[in-house]
């Protein structure tokens, strides 16, 4: 019940943008507005995706994991819109201009790389792919999201003229989210080693996300 509702909520930023576009409520530079809005929502969805595991561990609401894939895919969806806006509305598929643009604007290169890194994650987000890869490999692969998140913040930081406050805020949020993982990781690694030494079995039933297990990956449905 909750999932379809959340799905619609995730579409709201796009709906608002479309409504503003059709009713003339965008600024004098609508292409710039569309670029900025789709870009910021990509970053927001990435941050929300990364916040789910810490949130789940703090609140013990383990059901939250059910929404992670969808939110992650929405990050990819908004990222695709952002990228398409650049290609189509901003550059109008002028490949020569785009090729010239990329080395001149390092923030575009970083943004582009971050987007590309999301593609394998989106492709391997199906149940079938998770099974095919196996939870361990899948989890390792999906750590790419950290690179995408860092790249996204750098992309944002490099493109603003002076008001670095907003990109820095996103940077701080990421640092907090990463710090939480590291903080959790160290004791859990130690625990695992002890566990392995004592039982010599795998950790099939552990649900701490930072430990790659098949169980965890398949639960991310």
């Amino acid at each position, binding site marked *: 019940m909750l999932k379809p509702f959340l799905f619609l909520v995730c579409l709201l930023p796009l709906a608002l943008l479309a409504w503003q576009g059709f009713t003339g409520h965008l*600024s*004098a*530079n609508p*292409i*710039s507005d569309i670029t900025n809005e789709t870009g910021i929502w990509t970053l927001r969805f990435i941050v929300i995706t990364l916040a789910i595991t810490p949130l789940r561990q703090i609140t013990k609401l383990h059901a939250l994991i059910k929404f992670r894939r969808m939110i992650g895919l929405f990050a990819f969806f908004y990222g695709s819109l952002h990228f398409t806006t650049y290609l189509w*509305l901003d550059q*109008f598929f002028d490949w020569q*201009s785009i090729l*010239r*643009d990329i080395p*001149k*604007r*390092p*923030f575009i290169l970083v943004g582009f790389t971050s987007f590309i890194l999301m593609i394998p994650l989106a492709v391997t987000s199906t149940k079938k792919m998770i099974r095919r890869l196996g939870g361990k490999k899948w989890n390792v692969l999906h750590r790419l999201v950290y690179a995408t998140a860092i790249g996204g913040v750098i992309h944002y930081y*490099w*493109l603003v*003229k*002076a*008001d670095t*406050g907003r990109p820095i805020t996103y940077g701080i949020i990421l640092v907090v989210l990463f710090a939480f993982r590291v903080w959790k990781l160290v004791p859990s690694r130690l625990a695992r080693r002890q566990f392995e030494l004592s039982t010599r079995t795998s950790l099939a039933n552990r649900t701490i996300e930072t430990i790659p297990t098949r169980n965890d990956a398949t639960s991310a449905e």
Partner: protein
Amino acid sequence: MLIKKQNGIPSSEITDEKLYFNRRNFMKAAAVAGAGAAAYAFFSKKSPVVFAQEGKSWKTAHPSNYDTTETLTPYKDVTTYNNFYEFGVDKSDPSENAWRLTTSPWTVEVSGNVKKPAVYHLEDFVKPYALEDRIYRMRCVEGWSMVIPWLGFPLSNIIRRAEPTSKATFVAFQTLYRPDEMIGQKRDVLQWPYVEGLRMDEAMHPLTILAVGLYGKALPKQDGAPLRLVTPWKYGFKGIKSIVKISFVENQPPTTWNLYAPNEYGFYSNVNPNVDHPRWSQARERRIGEFFKRPTLMFNGYGDQVASMYSGMDLRKYF
């Protein structure tokens, strides 16, 4: 070349009938372009035009021969899509927050190496000069551009009145600092107050104006009321807004964006498609209201008028 050639006579003295009537025709066309343009045509029908701001009548708006004939950017866009960090960093912030600014009374200090330093009330500062319409292109360093019908007078008038001494080689400008009204100044996004500067020859150039209006009306607060600088061959941020001080100095004065990022914003900041901003290309621009980008012109298309001021200068070094 879209800009009509200079013919040696100061534009304020020109009453070229042909030009004048061309303008009228153009303004008729412009009236169709939007509500703001219609207002402009309305003001222009009365000749002489009486320009009034808060009850004070200023002199006739003159036609000028520096106008571009390109389509005007609609009044709404010129007054809602602004970079004026004193009121916030988003484009919509100035039009939402600038109402707080008190523009009357307003004083302008003229000081430094001049024979006649003075502090003027705005009306006395403007009163002696005939206002002119100047339809200029405006190219923002961010890669977008507009065509704006300013109302103003050449800065050279002010310079002549102040009688600078031989020590005055640069002109420095300063914006009001009043964080209670300019709420963007409460955050140190930039170093306040905003400061800008021109070399004396740039300041004396006939294209350089102090604007008090646009579209035949008093300058909206979000566009830099009550007095702002317009240098159409330079990036928009050189056009310092809400000016309270003009001083004549010996050395190149500090400028706000240059202080913020010296490798990104130079003192000159002439529009130059061949010298990229370190983080983006300057080769093309999007004219507000247009879909396709257009190539950016050297000196924003004012090369015939201004290029000679920079001959022999390495424009990559002096960007």
